[in-house]
């Protein structure tokens, strides 16, 4: 009996979300765009604490955002002393990583998290409690972020190549000034610009990948 030809069914279930724990720092803008471009290229939805409205209690919203995301990427490459006085270390990223680990252990065991760093042995020094956890090292470059995220995500709905991710990234980079003008902001680290960038990245990814 001849086999009936069936169209491959689209995968069922909910689209997966990725929580981005990244620094909101002008010098990190290129990598910020790279993370949005890459996560969207993999067919996943990026989320960040930037979306949190000021009216809500921030910590509650961070916890619910992490709990609702299936994956989280924690970039600890900018855990360093602030330049403005008083000079303090930046605790937000390690703190959110700690919240994620606790949530994953106690409440959301299916949540997967990974740590990204700019140099190989920095994590051992800055956060020795994570010894035995190898970070993905992106060397502080856009290409490095794309390369490492290809290693992080396997069997994703979409399998983008690095040139495809670069095409999405270049589009975001070229449109960033226009999005900043339209939102009246001077840096991309606000809710409106972040959501616009994510939608543009999804539009580009759906055409390119």
């Amino acid at each position, binding site marked *: 009996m001849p086999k009936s030809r069936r169209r491959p069914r689209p995968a069922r279930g909910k689209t997966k979300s990725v929580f981005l724990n990244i620094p909101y720092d002008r010098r990190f803008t290129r990598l910020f765009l790279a993370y949005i471009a890459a996560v969207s290229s993999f067919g996943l939805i990026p989320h960040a604490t930037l979306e949190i409205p000021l009216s809500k209690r921030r910590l509650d919203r961070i916890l619910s955002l992490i709990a609702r995301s299936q994956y989280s990427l924690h970039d600890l490459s900018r855990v360093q002393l602030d330049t403005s006085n008083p000079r303090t270390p930046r605790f937000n990223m390690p703190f959110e990583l700690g919240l994620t680990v606790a949530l994953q252990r106690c409440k959301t065991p299916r949540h997967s998290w990974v740590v990204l760093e700019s140099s190989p042995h920095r994590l051992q020094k800055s956060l020795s409690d994570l010894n035995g956890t190898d970070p993905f090292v992106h060397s502080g470059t856009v290409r490095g972020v794309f390369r490492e995220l290809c290693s992080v995500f396997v069997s994703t709905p979409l*399998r983008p190549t690095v040139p*495809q991710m670069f095409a999405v990234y270049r589009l975001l980079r070229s449109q960033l000034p226009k999005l900043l003008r339209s939102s009246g902001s001077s840096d991309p680290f606000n809710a409106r610009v972040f959501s616009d960038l994510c*939608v543009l990245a999804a539009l580009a990814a759906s*055409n390119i990948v």
Partner: protein
Amino acid sequence: MQPIVATGPATTPRKTAKALSVSPTRFRRLSALYRSLIRDSSNSHPASHAKIKAKTSTRAR
């Protein structure tokens, strides 16, 4: 560290917009912006977006 096995459907631009609470009007504007970009790039540059798409999708296969 173990890689993440991420199964499930790929997102669509509309799903992304909904997940990020982007209003339908804003979504239409962003879609229009994206379409105009594609049109402009394919009109003005030989290395157009369409060509990038063709090139990368061939490479992916």
